[in-house]
């Protein structure tokens, strides 16, 4: 089910990228796709009844099936940060696009035609 959600989220992101004329909305669509992929990654590592992979007094022992897969979580951590970086870059570019082309709407931008 979670897989389906992530697939549908990717679809939504793609839909957004395809239809939105506002560049910032496109950036957000991109972010949705990122999130969808992250959800997928986390979902891939889920084990039924598994706990968060942290040893503590409550779960001091390594046992088969006791924990969910920690590796996807580590990957997602990285992926999220990368997403943040890209988002920040994109946003700052859009600030400048707005300055230069007077709009961030694809149809109203001035001086982008070749």
């Amino acid at each position, binding site marked *: *089910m*979670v*897989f*389906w959600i992530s*697939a*549908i989220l*990717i*679809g*939504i992101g*793609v*839909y957004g990228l*395809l*239809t939105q004329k506002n560049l910032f909305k496109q950036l957000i669509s991109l972010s949705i796709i990122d999130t969808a992929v992250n959800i997928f990654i986390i*979902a*891939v*590592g*889920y*084990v*039924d009844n598994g706990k*968060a*992979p*942290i*040893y*503590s*007094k409550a*779960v*001091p*022992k*390594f*046992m*088969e*099936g006791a*924990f*969910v*897969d*920690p*590796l996807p*979580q*580590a*990957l997602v*951590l*990285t992926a*999220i*940060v*990368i997403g*943040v*970086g*890209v988002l*920040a*870059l994109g*946003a*700052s*570019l859009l*600030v*400048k696009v707005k300055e230069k082309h007077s709009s961030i709407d694809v149809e109203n931008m001035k001086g982008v035609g070749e």
Partner: protein
Amino acid sequence: MRRFYAILIAAALVYMLISFISTVPSYGKADLKERVSDAFLSKSVNAQNTKAWMEGKAIHRQPAKEIYGKKVKEEGSANVVTSIVVNYRSFDTLGEVTVLFTAALGVGLILGGSRRKQYGREANFVLKTSTGILVPLIIMFGAYIFVHGHLTPGGGFPGGTIIAMASLLLYLSDEKFFLSKASTGALEGSMGGTYVIIGLLGLAIGGYFLYNFLPNGVVGNLVSAGIVPLVYVAIGLKVGAELSGLVTDLHSEKEG
């Protein structure tokens, strides 16, 4: 019409992805024995025989063992995700730090502001006062998060982000507030450098870049897991400085 086609395409993509998903083990049925994760969880990477493991003949099954509160020779952080992020796959994290570094750098270069942007609206009294109270607490909380990264959920990235929240709060509450680029840059650079230097020390001492050359201690203790807390502190400060710098860039404009 455009939307209709877009829906069609998106639907086709979703259909395709769902058909892809059939190749993945169904939700909740992931078998960690077939993955490297079991070795991470049981902290027994060094005990594995690579060739046999890859061939799949080996005992993928790891024996159950007590870990919390014990001295584990291989790895010492209670949080396994942290042990992966900062130890087993620390190089990824170096890359990750670099991405963030690049983003901050890029935002600085693109926006190129050098003085505080004035919005012309005064923050209200509640915000101002509470900022004064909250900022030290937030910073402390952030520091707590990344110092305990190897024990509890969290770590350098969340901790750093929380610290950056503090500076964001300061920006929101005060039109005059401006962090100098030089200071955030210096912290950022020196902390990034620290991370790399820790790695290089590992290379010098153990022969491998990012080698854990400090004793692991007892799993669950604050002082344990070798270089992990050090790296996480560096990352935390670096991310904090970076994101603060990013916030600074977004709130600044060009001279004149």
